[in-house]
């Protein structure tokens, strides 16, 4: 809608790498629009479902609804799509990534697949297939595709199921690894068969193996680059990371993604050598403990920075770990390798949690980062439309305080896409109060 405010001046990004991300995102969206004319197939897909390498090896162009909705949110042009979805009885309390994209799909369909006027960065192209997933991440990943099919009735859907063992302090999850990995592998094979059937092309297994190798290397360089942020002052913070997460999240398995992190690594090394930090005066180092950010309010990171608070590390979108730490069994089967990597990553902090009574794997990860990155406090963001990432945050904060230390914690509330939930004055007031807490804690000599 024309009268909606456009995004304010974007926050000053600390790294050139982060500033270049717009190009990646635009390209991703544009590729989904031009795919048809280039003889390529488009698959609507969702991040962190383990299907990246399969798509890239088959030259499938992903249509990332989450990216599109994030862009609409950041550009403050999501409301008309949310309203369109609401007009067909999708509740406002549902995942707003989904309802934003559904609204867009509905409008595009009414235009017979033609581009939706004014859609952020050209919008997304109509998909040939949809790849969903039932996993331990989120329900919308299989309900959203199904809901989409109500409007795109000729588009086939495949839903895989990628599970990993749930955390149980009394159980050694390694006893269940074998059948979990077999299950995940079987699901990945089913995904390949679906794509071969509906796209009429065969998987090139050598190419897949090479793509998986590349994605392993990308995880490694991604973490190497991020670990440079341990430096004091930190050369990059979460505000940037919400941009630099794009390649590993949306372009995993491509050379561009790998090259991006190589460049980032070099840039951060350079900044450290020059003593350049994110904030002029770095007073407080914070961990972004959980939660998707409000994409329309990334400027709030600037607000933190202006008060001397920086975020050298975050859990959100740090969707990988150095493969050597995951102790992956050797295999020639690239899909089996993905299955092991999937499972070992998601259970990486289980052993630590079992060793500390009352702990949880997510909290162990938080503790690890607090210590490695020398953090003074933790900030969580609870987004109302996303149960998947935000239910459980109160417990994480409580457990952290109980088993670790009385470190200052802030839980902010808002949403990923729906701006009507956001009030800038209130948010800033909360941040101010938290800064005061950090100051007090610092004075008392707490870590």
């Amino acid at each position, binding site marked *: 809608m024309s*009268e*909606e*405010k456009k995004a304010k001046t974007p926050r000053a990004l600390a790294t050139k790498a982060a500033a270049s991300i717009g190009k990646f995102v635009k390209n991703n969206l544009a590729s989904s629009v031009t795919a048809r004319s280039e003889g390529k197939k488009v698959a609507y897909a969702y991040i962190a479902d383990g299907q990246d390498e399969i798509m890239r090896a088959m030259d499938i162009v992903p249509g990332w609804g989450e990216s599109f909705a994030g862009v609409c949110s950041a550009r403050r042009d999501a409301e008309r799509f949310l*309203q*369109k979805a*609401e*007009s*067909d*009885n999708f509740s406002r309390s549902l995942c707003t990534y989904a309802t934003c994209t559904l609204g867009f799909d509905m409008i595009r369909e009414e235009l017979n697949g033609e581009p939706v006027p004014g859609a952020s960065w050209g919008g997304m192209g109509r998909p040939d297939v949809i790849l969903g997933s039932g996993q331990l991440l989120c329900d919308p990943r299989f309900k959203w595709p199904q809901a989409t099919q109500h409007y795109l009735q000729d588009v086939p859907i495949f839903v895989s199921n990628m599970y990993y063992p749930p955390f149980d302090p009394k159980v050694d999850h390694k006893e269940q690894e074998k059948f979990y990995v077999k299950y995940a592998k079987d699901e990945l094979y089913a995904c390949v068969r679906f794509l071969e059937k509906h796209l009429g092309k065969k998987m090139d297994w050598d190419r897949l193996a090479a793509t998986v190798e590349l994605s392993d290397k990308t995880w490694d360089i991604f973490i190497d680059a991020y670990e440079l942020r341990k430096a004091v002052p930190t050369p990059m913070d979460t505000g940037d990371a919400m941009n630099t997460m794009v390649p590993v999240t949306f372009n995993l398995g491509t050379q561009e993604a790998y090259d991006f992190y190589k460049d980032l690594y070099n840039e951060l090394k350079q900044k450290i050598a020059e003593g350049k930090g994110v904030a002029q005066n770095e007073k407080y180092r914070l961990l972004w403990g959980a939660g998707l950010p409000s994409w329309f309010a990334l400027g709030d990171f600037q607000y933190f920075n202006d008060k001397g608070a920086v975020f050298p590390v975050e859990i959100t979108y740090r969707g990988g770990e150095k493969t050597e730490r995951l102790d992956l069994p050797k295999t020639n089967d690239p899909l089996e390798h993905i299955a092991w990597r999937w499972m070992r990553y998601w259970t990486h902090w289980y052993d630590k949690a079992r060793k500390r009574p009352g702990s949880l794997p997510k909290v162990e990860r938080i503790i690890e980062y607090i210590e490695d990155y020398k953090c003074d406090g933790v900030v969580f963001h609870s987004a109302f439309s996303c149960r998947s990432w935000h239910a459980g945050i109160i417990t994480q904060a409580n457990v952290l305080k109980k088993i670790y230390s009385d470190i200052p914690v802030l839980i902010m509330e808002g949403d990923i896409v729906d*701006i*009507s939930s956001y*009030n800038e*004055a209130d948010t800033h007031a909360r941040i101010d109060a938290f800064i005061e807490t950090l100051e007090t804690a610092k004075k008392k000599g707490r870590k």
Partner: protein
Amino acid sequence: MSRHFAGIDIGSTMTKVVILGDKIEASYIGPTGPEHRKLANKVMEEALSRANLSFKDLDYIVATGYGRINVPFADKQVTEITCHARGLHYFLPTVQTIIDIGGQDSKGIKIKNGKVSGFVMNDKCAAGTGRFMEVIADALAVPLEKLGELSLTATKPAFISSTCTVFAEHEVTNQLANGESTANLVAGIHDAIAARVFGLLNKLKIEPDVAVTGGGAKNIGLVKAIEARFKCKILVPPEPLITGAMGAALIGKETYENSVKSGETLLRSGKGLREATFFN
């Protein structure tokens, strides 16, 4: 022998009565107050006196609105959705889509062949209702009934982004403090309500003719804002506050006439007007 029917609409703020014979014989609007029963009597009495009738002259009484279950002398209760549709259809028979902006809720109603064919309600949230207008009128120190004409003098409606009444109030007072004119702010609030109402009505297929009823329909500025948002002419019934009571009276008349035709006994409440005042 002429028959008389009454429709009584007990809203959150106002109680409305229509006495119907072959035509409208009287109507009256009074404040509801906290105790529906007590005031329902008074409003009914007032309407009856204006029609020169007594309570026993009434052949059937239908109650509607928020407080409809608390009218002991009513013979039947019917929701305000059905009653507003019926009443509006009587006054404006070409209307297919109704927007009702009441004190505490807003509704969308579709009419097909004189009957309700679909409806949506927003009664969970003040934004888009009369309450929203009251809060803003207070904040701007403008009498509620003057909001409409004031907004027509706006040079450029302010943009209010918050959909929540409380946040919108903040925004309005902030903008006022920053020098924005009252007229522009009121016009901006009207736009915000129109947007909200549009979002609600979108769940129905908006088909012309479109009409507005309820207290909101008396605000000329709001009606214009709705016209701009809906991009079509918006009709307003002669007295927007009584469409519900009118519909109730019409349903009363129909119920009576059906029972005469079919020969079935008409069940009545058996309660007189006076008795209600003895209830606690």
